């Protein structure tokens, strides 16, 4: 059997495409968590982004408005979380859960009128270069701008955290809010900003799903990707570059599962669909077993409220 080398390229490209929403949401959540805030509402923010992007695209016809609108929707919904956890000092876990339940409900409510409407074609870049290089052509070229942004994001995030002053401030706030506060840093403001940024990235991840990856609105279409994104942050031990690796593994699982079904592997489809979730658990166990390593890399104040008495 001769396997077309471009076919392998296409499979790798499809794995990368399914990794995009995970990378976006995880990198956003990573910044939020680095500032000491655990936002379990990723799934809710993502699905809000998905319906907002799709609805705005259908109503306005503009892809730019839709993409930025989805990010704005993510910001708005995460503002609720920020206000509750930072201003009203609520429990991070419970508030994040409420955000997810609320987000799924609201998205289905808005989305009722958009079920069954076909999506629009999203423009891709460098389409003509696709056939110029064997194998690498389909991997490198012919993708949407969001795709390229997602693969640059872990590097940008890493640079931001390590090399910029604001990145240093974010890390300081997450590792020791008391000392940061004593240095005159407004802890609450930094955390607000990081939560809203996380919201915008989750919103973008959702918009990618409903506008580019499967260009249509399906209820609950995020299907647990928000939770896998949260697991990826733990997997990465809060290192953005490792998110890239993790997201590719999960993207790979999703794609391989499709291909195994296509070539007629005699495993029940439900077991293949369950694979990403089971692998997430196994990976979490392997990573977390080394409790010392986890303790060293986890932002010290993660999930703990900070309140400065006046």
């Amino acid at each position, binding site marked *: 059997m001769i396997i077309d080398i471009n076919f392998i390229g296409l499979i790798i490209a499809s794995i990368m495409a399914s990794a995009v929403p995970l990378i976006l949401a995880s990198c956003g959540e990573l910044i939020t968590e680095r500032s000491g805030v655990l936002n379990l509402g990723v799934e809710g923010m993502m699905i809000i982004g998905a319906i907002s992007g799709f609805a705005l695209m259908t109503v306005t016809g503009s892809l730019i408005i839709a993409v930025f609108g989805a990010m704005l929707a993510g910001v708005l919904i995460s503002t609720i979380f920020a206000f509750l956890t930072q201003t*009203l000092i609520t429990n991070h876990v*419970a508030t994040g859960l409420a955000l997810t339940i609320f*987000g799924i409900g609201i998205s289905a*409510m808005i989305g009722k009128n958009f079920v069954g409407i076909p999506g629009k074609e999203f423009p891709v870049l460098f389409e003509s270069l696709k056939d110029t290089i064997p194998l690498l052509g389909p991997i490198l070229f012919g993708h949407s701008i969001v795709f390229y942004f997602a693969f640059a994001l872990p590097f940008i995030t890493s640079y931001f955290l390590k090399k910029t002053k604001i990145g240093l401030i974010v890390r300081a706030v997450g590792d020791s809010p008391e000392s940061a506060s004593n240095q005159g840093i407004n802890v609450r403001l930094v955390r607000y900003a990081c939560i809203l940024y996380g919201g915008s990235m989750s919103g973008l991840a959702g918009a990618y799903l409903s506008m580019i990856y499967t260009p249509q609105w399906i209820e609950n279409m995020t299907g647990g990707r928000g939770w896998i994104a949260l697991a990826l942050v733990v997997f990465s031990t809060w290192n953005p570059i490792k998110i890239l690796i993790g997201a590719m593994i999960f993207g790979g699982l999703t794609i391989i599962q499709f291909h195994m079904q296509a070539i007629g592997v005699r495993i029940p489809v*439900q077991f293949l669909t369950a694979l990403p979730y089971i692998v997430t658990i196994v990976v979490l166990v392997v990573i*977390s077993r080394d409790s010392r390593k986890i303790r060293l890399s986890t932002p010290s104040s993660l999930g703990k409220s900070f309140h400065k008495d006046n």
Partner: protein
Amino acid sequence: MIKIVKRDQPSRAIFFLTPILAIFLTLVAGGLIFYILGFKPFEALKFFFIVPIADKYGFSELLLKATPLCLIAIGLSFCFKSNNWNIGAEGQLTFGAIVSGGVALLFYEQEGFYILPIVILAGAIGGMLYASIPAILKTYFNTNEILVSLMLVYVSKLILDYLVVGPWSNPEGFNFPETRQFSDSARLPLLFEGLRIHAGIFLALASVVISWFVFYKTYLGFQMKVSGFSLKTAKYAGYKGKKMIILVFLISGACAGLAGVGEITGPIGQLHREVSPDYGFTAIIVAFLGRLHPVGIIFASLVVAITYLGAETAQIFMQIPKYTGQVFQGMILFFLLASDYLLFFKFKFIGSKK
């Protein structure tokens, strides 16, 4: 001028009053959402919260929905009180339903008083087995229980899907994704002729009594409370943390499993794809709204059960999308958490008196 002052001590009266405030604020915000969506707010709220429970049948349906919510929330309160974030009750419910459903199918077309107790026990064990996974991974492998318990929800639903489509599907069922009907001996008895409310409600009430006893009268309850306040203190006091973590997960899993049994041997009578309309997730809200207190949870389960019925009624009579129920559930939790602020802080009016 208004100044915000920290209370010396959280207010106990406000602790039990804020849930009522949260429900009130949810109604106001809900009315506002209905208005934005173009419905008459008062009429919509009436269809949502009053019409569904206005007659005998409606009240029976309310208890039918409140039963699993109460049972699961009681179980979850064991976990939440001791700082264990089990959010996968939906999976434990589903797995409990799978195990007890499998046992019930073994007794297909058989009669006997012993069948139902075995089926119920199987459900509790199923739920416990499934809850033991995040518990063991948390205690021995330091793995985050939130993510593990949640991932297992997806897995349990896929296992159920596989079983009802494949090996367990009804051989005379024209390939519908469902099993055979259970025999009458495997069904929970109905309490009243013509109403769907079944004996499962006694399981929920029993769980309320038992949990009250454990929380307030036993050493385990005290340990849980201390661990909930401060894990460091618990360690200092020499509590066996690991044992307690596994125990609270098992209790919580058993309750969720029993809720699963109640659904399939009560109103459903067989296994199919959707054994639960997300009762396991909604029960998290019930547990918080009830302040993790057994009596509070009874009231909270009734309030939250209305959102299920209201969503159905509002959809039929006003074409309001049924997901409004979930929106209400999310809002209740938001407002409840927000009003907790009043527990720790109070507003002081300055300036009027000098």
